């Protein structure tokens, strides 16, 4: 039996190894490799070593795009936290059955492709879209509101798409708080805010950080949301990288930005470990 077990383990692990090596590690190495090469004007890659791509990143215009992307991603993360905490705490007080139903509902949007959901939003948000029509017809407003083709529209799309990634880890860490501790806090006269600050927040910190990472990182790169709800006139890192690989035909520079982005994300995770987070908590749901 022991022998069979090993074979089975092997059979199940091999696909994962193949997947990680060929679809994650090798492409990343390739990206890393070409980020030090030159490009020719027809979009080919020349095997000449250069650091120019990394120097180019520090031009004003690209730094501005970095900052803008970070602000959008930070804003998205912050709003997601503000929405998720009350939701998750409210859900955790319901009985098991209702909790399960509510958490399943959080997952429901994933059943539809997110690109299609974004196009759905345009029907709601555009100048003479559903929301503006209702507001105009009820005379609540005289002029249609500018709900999309600006940063506001992008934020709606980002928060909507990424919210579940905040709710899920936060929910699982809220579940680890033992009820008696909350009751004790209540008995000892702690206010709701004190209970949150002293008990809930510290205990859900891993979930909070996990969620923040899962919201923040994709928010830097989700170019389709920016393209559709931002009207293609606001550029974030995702669009910048996409442009290098397509329109500008400058793969090495696109690769350099990607590597830079990976570096920043790694620093964030390193910072998390530094302040005492455990790597297990990042993966633990």
């Amino acid at each position, binding site marked *: 039996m022991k022998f069979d077990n090993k074979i089975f383990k092997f059979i199940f692990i091999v696909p994962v190894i193949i997947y990680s090596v060929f679809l994650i590690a090798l492409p990343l190495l390739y990206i890393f490799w070409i980020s030090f090469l030159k490009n020719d*004007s027809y979009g080919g890659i020349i095997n000449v070593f250069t650091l120019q791509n990394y120097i180019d990143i520090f031009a004003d215009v690209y730094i501005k795009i970095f900052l803008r992307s970070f602000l959008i991603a930070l804003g998205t993360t912050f709003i997601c936290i503000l929405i998720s905490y009350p939701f998750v705490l409210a859900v955790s007080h319901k009985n098991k059955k209702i909790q399960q139903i509510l958490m399943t509902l959080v997952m429901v949007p994933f059943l539809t492709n997110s690109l299609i959901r974004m196009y759905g939003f345009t029907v709601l948000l555009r100048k*003479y879209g559903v929301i503006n029509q209702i507001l105009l017809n009820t005379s609540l407003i005289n002029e249609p509101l500018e709900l999309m*083709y600006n940063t506001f529209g992008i934020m709606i799309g980002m928060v909507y798409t990424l919210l579940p990634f905040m709710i899920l880890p936060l929910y699982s860490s809220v579940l680890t708080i033992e009820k008696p501790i909350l009751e004790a806090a209540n008995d000892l006269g702690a206010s709701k805010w004190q209970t949150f600050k002293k008990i809930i927040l510290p205990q859900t910190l891993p979930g909070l950080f996990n969620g923040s990472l899962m919201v923040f990182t994709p928010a830097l790169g989700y170019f389709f949301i920016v393209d559709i709800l931002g009207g*293609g006139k606001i550029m974030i890192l995702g*669009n910048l990288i996409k442009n290098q690989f*397509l*329109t*500008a*035909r400058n793969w090495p520079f696109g690769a350099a930005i990607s590597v830079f982005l990976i570096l920043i994300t790694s620093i964030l995770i390193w910072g998390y470990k530094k302040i005492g987070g455990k790597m297990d908590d990042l993966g633990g749901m």
Partner: protein
Amino acid sequence: MKKIILVFLMLLILTGCTKKEEQKHVNILNWSSYIPDSVIRNFEKETNIKVNYGTYSSNEELLAKVSNAKEGTYDLIFPSDYMIEIMKNRDMLEKIDKTKLNNINNLNSSYLNLEYDSNNDYSLPFIAASTVISVNRDLVKDSITSYNDLLNPKYKNDIVLIDDQRIIIGMALLANGYDMNSTDEKELEVAKEWLLQLKDNIKAYDSDSPKNFLITKEVSIAVLWNAEGALASMENNSIENIFPNEGFALSIDNFAIPKGAKNKEELYIFIDYILRPDVMKEIISSYPYKNINKETDKILNDDYLNNKAANIPDEIYKQGSFVKNVGDSIRTFDKIWAEIK
């Protein structure tokens, strides 16, 4: 336990035994919304050749798709003028054997032997296009004859542009009296300043369907491809199409065969089919770009012929210019693009 493994292995072997007899087919990669489905279906019915059809939305996407796919993945592609030049230079195209095309003489000779492929060795024109300014006359009463008219602060957040850096920076160059393909740093700097001035008026950049912005009244002015402008004016007759004084961008999309195409016979049958006057008429009626098939000209409807955005008059067409490959200056274009967004 061993039995389970055995069954598993046998299943693996079985999956290898399902190879079917191959049907004749052709793998086509084309612009989205260029050839109506009905044309493809009729071709399949008539010739019994199955069409595997993929789409792209920019020349650059096409380049990326073809250069990253295994040779022989695609049989027929539709690059524009400057992309033909690039692909030719990267040795990605095969010569076209014109003797295999019976309908080749239907092509209007003014669109043959152009600079980007002087003998049409590697490409044959499919349709021609130009950019145009479309204006909703219900909402905009002022006269618009020049790109500079779009700078009027009245049109705040009221303009949609094609999401293409060469076309839009080219437009800014034209507005300032320069060549659309200028690579002069100073001229490009002026173009950048001009676009920054225009920034507040731009509601969105969109290449997929800018006409929808006009039709849904999201904006009242658009700079888009002529077929989009023509369709918008057919949908709503208060939409007027204007060819600006300073000129505009032209584009010719071509049939081209990527290196290593496998289904040679079928792809020539397909090109010949598209070159048939009645087939081209069906395509042009759905996507009213400028027709370059002489025989089709004779049978097109008045709807098309009288729409000047669709059937661009020759004397206007002459005022346009092609997007040319700008070599390494593409970096400057890309940087400007990042700065104005």
